[in-house]
């Protein structure tokens, strides 16, 4: 194994161009477990911890940009948590304090596990993933970025540099079910975003399909029932039917973590809860 530690994005992109297929490493919370177990034997590792620009974020009224190397710990509180409460909620469910000090959105995006806690938030917020290569920067909407279980549309010489998110106005939250509170991989998760600007309620589901699933049919149904340009009505019947429709769009499987039936049930319950919380 050879390890490179670039200090700028340009150096990292150049190294990646010279070593196509190199393993990009930041927190290592997922990749290094694979390496320790000999499931992954990277020939070349490009460590990104010293690239300080990847660890920065900017917040303006028009756009929030989060560097791929910003650790989850910095999303839990502070300006990012105020701007993106759903991301803060998701960040708090990741691993443990040590994992949150290391793990990053770039890592979540690179691995692209359906259970990645940051991903439903990116899907619900219609985030754009910015990929840098010698050809320049390519912005890919999240829904086109994740294409399958641990598969994404990044090509081998592209570096995940940041994500861009348009600020929303209204409630947003993330809820997750796992087998215990800490150090747990999601069994099912839901991110709900209400945006008055675009008069929309958007819902994304984690760990219940090969990719993060946007419940677009349920979102469209809800738009016929409520006016999302203002406060959402605390209507229990709407919440129940919306949750039922969202759960119907999940595509869960039975695996070692849970069953498809339980996952669908969890999605329904979490969605109903989040909808009702959004009306308070």
């Amino acid at each position, binding site marked *: 194994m050879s390890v490179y530690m670039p200090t700028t994005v340009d150096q990292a992109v150049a190294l990646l161009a010279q070593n196509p297929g190199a393993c990009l490493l930041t927190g290592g919370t997922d990749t290094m477990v694979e390496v320790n177990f000999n499931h992954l034997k990277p020939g070349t590792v490009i460590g990104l911890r010293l690239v300080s620009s990847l660890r920065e974020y900017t917040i303006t009224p028009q756009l929030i940009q989060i560097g791929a190397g910003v650790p989850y710990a910095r999303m839990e509180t502070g300006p990012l948590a105020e701007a993106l409460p759903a991301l803060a909620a998701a960040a708090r469910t990741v691993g443990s304090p*040590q994992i949150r000090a290391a793990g990053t959105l770039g890592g979540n995006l690179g691995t692209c596990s359906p259970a990645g806690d940051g991903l439903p938030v990116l899907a619900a917020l219609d985030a754009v993933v910015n990929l840098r290569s010698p050809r320049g920067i390519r912005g890919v909407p999240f829904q086109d970025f994740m294409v399958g279980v641990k598969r994404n549309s990044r090509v081998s010489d592209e570096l995940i540099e940041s994500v861009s998110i348009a600020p929303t106005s209204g409630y947003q939250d993330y809820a997750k079910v796992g087998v215990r509170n800490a150090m747990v991989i999601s069994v099912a998760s839901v991110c709900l975003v209400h945006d008055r600007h675009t008069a929309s309620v958007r819902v994304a589901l984690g760990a219940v399909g090969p990719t993060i699933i946007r419940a677009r049919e349920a979102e469209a149904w809800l738009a016929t029932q409520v006016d999302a340009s203002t406060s959402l009505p605390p209507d229990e019947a709407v919440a129940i039917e919306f949750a039922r429709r969202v759960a119907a769009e999940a595509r869960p499987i039975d695996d070692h973590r849970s069953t498809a039936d339980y996952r669908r049930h969890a999605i329904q319950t979490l969605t109903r809860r989040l909808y009702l919380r959004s009306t308070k």
Partner: protein
Amino acid sequence: MKISLTVNGELRESEIEPRTLLVQYLRENLALTGTNIGCDTSSCGACSMHLNGEAVKSCTILAAQADGCNITTIEGLAKGGKMHPMQEAFMQNHGLQCGYCTPGMVMAAISLLEENANPTEDEVRVGLEGNLCRCTGYHNIIQSVLACAKGGN
């Protein structure tokens, strides 16, 4: 490859195999065996140490990734033969049984108090959620951290 980092206040420059984990580097190259290896999967927290002041799990970090960083291990806590207040609190409150998780617990607990100087019991439990005690001695570990926060061991 060559790395250079500050470990417990001392600049260390070493020639290492690129695949070396940070915890292996500390234990095998620097003979700092106070940091234990538990699970190799960053689940148990036994290998917790401070990287630039923040607790991280050193079994899933390459030593090369810590190049240029500032590392504190359990060996770096005592000053002038006097234990760190957290170590003292663990001793006074019997916050350990077999002791295997203790270095990681102490490092995580110090990091916790740096973020939240006066935590509730629940906040201590959440703050230490990444550290497992195989003796299940959590009660006294939490009492130790609370005692340290109150300044009274």
